């Protein structure tokens, strides 16, 4: 913690960054923080409660954040993958942001409840994450950590869904998606959903009905699943933000496994590696084209 705070203060003092975006203690556990002076930098924290992905704050539409000036962002390895996505897709210039990598052993499934990280309490996405520190950083802080061996309940659930008949799977997703109110929280917190005009907001023509009925919700979630295919960095923000408790991680995880299987691609923290959706190769699988 001291290391992080001292680095933040140094970046601010030397003018390398005008704001350090990290985490601080809030009324309900830790939360995103925007440190613009030494006092605020001294309040920065990093521990297993820091589940929030801070990369979305680099979105150019967040003018009130951009107005603070050149940012330094504290990134866990998954957050660094999100920043890599933004650089790869020309949303952020590498030289416009200072990246402070934190060594990460995983975050808690229930960050608000707090407690120590264990095979029981670790977030599901961290059970299948294999990076402990990112190469996409100007500075790396924290002590090296060993991965926790914990089986992924989410993968088990995906396998259960895969084993269902199409009718059973349909019934499952209809039940889950019926709760969606189309608040768009999943989209707004997603670091890779930065589109100025989301397809779902278009009205001429309207591709996706905005009503949260069966048809509209199915179209919306299919659209997002496809748009995030091979781009989703498994930061877990969509599922964490959903006020209706929809298990969006099951969708992102399933799609990621399809992309890994069909295109041999897993989103990483190297912005130079193209993503399958943004590139074309003559040996791409294409037997589905009639």
């Amino acid at each position, binding site marked *: 913690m001291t290391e992080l705070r001292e680095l933040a203060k140094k970046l601010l003092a030397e003018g390398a960054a005008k704001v350090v975006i990290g985490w601080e203690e*809030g*009324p*309900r*556990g*830790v*939360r*995103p*923080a*925007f440190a613009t002076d030494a006092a605020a930098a001294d309040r920065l924290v990093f521990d297993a409660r820091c589940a*929030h992905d801070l990369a*979305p704050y680099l979105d150019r*539409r*967040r*003018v*009130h*954040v951009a107005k*603070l000036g050149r940012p330094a962002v504290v990134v866990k390895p998954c957050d660094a993958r999100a920043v890599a996505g933004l650089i790869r897709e020309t949303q952020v210039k590498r030289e416009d942001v200072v990246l402070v990598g934190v060594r990460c052993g995983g975050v808690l499934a229930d960050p608000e409840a707090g407690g120590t990280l264990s095979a029981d309490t670790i977030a599901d996405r961290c059970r299948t994450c294999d990076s402990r520190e990112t190469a996409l950083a100007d500075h790396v802080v924290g002590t090296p950590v060993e991965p926790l061996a914990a089986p992924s309940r989410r993968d088990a659930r995906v396998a259960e869904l895969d084993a269902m008949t199409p009718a059973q799977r349909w019934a499952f997703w209809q*039940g*889950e998606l019926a*709760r969606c*109110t*189309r*608040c*768009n*929280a999943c*989209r*707004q*917190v997603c670091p890779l959903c930065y589109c100025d005009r989301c397809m779902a*907001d278009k009205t001429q023509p309207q591709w996706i*009905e*905005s*009503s*949260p*009925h069966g048809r*509209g919700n199915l179209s919306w979630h299919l659209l997002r699943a496809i748009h995030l295919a091979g781009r989703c960095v498994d930061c877990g*923000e969509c599922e*964490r*933000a*959903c*006020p*209706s*408790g929809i*298990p969006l991680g099951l969708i992102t995880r399933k799609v990621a496994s399809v992309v890994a299987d069909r295109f041999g691609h897993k989103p990483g923290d190297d912005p130079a590696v193209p993503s399958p959706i943004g590139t074309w190769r003559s040996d791409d699988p294409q037997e589905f084209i009639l």
Partner: protein
Amino acid sequence: MNATTISSSDLSGLAADLLAARVRVAGPARASDGTVEYRHAGAPAELVLDSGVPRRSLKEFFLPPTEPLFAWRTGAGGRVELLEAPLPADPAVVIGARPCDAAGIEALDKVMGWDYRDEPWFARREATTIVSLACAGFDRSCMCTSVGLAPDTTKGSDLLLVPIGGGAFRAEVVTAKGARLVAAYPARFRPASGEAEAEAFRKAAREKVAASAPPAADPLRPWLDAHFDHPLWREASLRCHGCGACAAVCPTCHCFDIVDEPETVGTGVRRRNWDTCQTPRFTIHASGHNPKNDQPARIRQRVLHKIVIYPKKFGEMLCTGCGRCSRACPGGMDLPEVLARIAALAGGAQ
């Protein structure tokens, strides 16, 4: 005030009686992931009273996330026919509403019955009886006492249940509708008892909430009026994603969007859907001008609508202090903290 007593088993029995009489019963129940939300119950055992604040508020039973207003159909000679959606009139009883949720419904009656009478809203209001369960105070985001309410408020409830120990509740009859419910199922109710126990529960709950809630919001109005452009809004909204989760879970956020959706060639449905002031699209004009063009302006709008604009227009707060916006916010925005900050600023300014 007229009161009676009901045991937990009779409360379950009442739910069973209502279901048998084809009355819809709703209340806190568990969703597939184990979280509590307000749901229609198929059996009394599904209701889990007092097991936390349901994820979303009660408003969706009166203002559903989407509802058809009318359908259209192009008939012979190109004549367009309008088919009004039937008014929702199924009798329903909510059992175990949180008082802050019931209060929110009554607060919304004002805007729903102001320049025109919102027919679907009032059809559901009239068909629904709300039985609330006095709250013991849930967590540090609760702030009902800061907005002129209390964990045992009767506002919006037809019947208020107060725990008196031994699994029984003292039931206060608040409205004629509540009295009708008691009169319709006399075998489920016993003569009133436990007045002292109920009073002790209510007092303890109020003290518990008041201990962590921010200062009263009412006196902040003059300061807010005088400081529309205060830097507070810029600072407070830095962490906001503009995601609208706060509005989706809020018992009193009621803005909606109206959409026309074609169904087949020549037919379609006009629907109204939940909307929120937290997105840029909410206020953008056809010209491209957006009067609320950044998140600070949108956060200010949400707070001011709750504690300045609505009270000025309708004489009551548009926040019942339920704390859901703080619990749901992925960015860690905290309304009690924002109000405490305003109170500190207002105190310093005076």
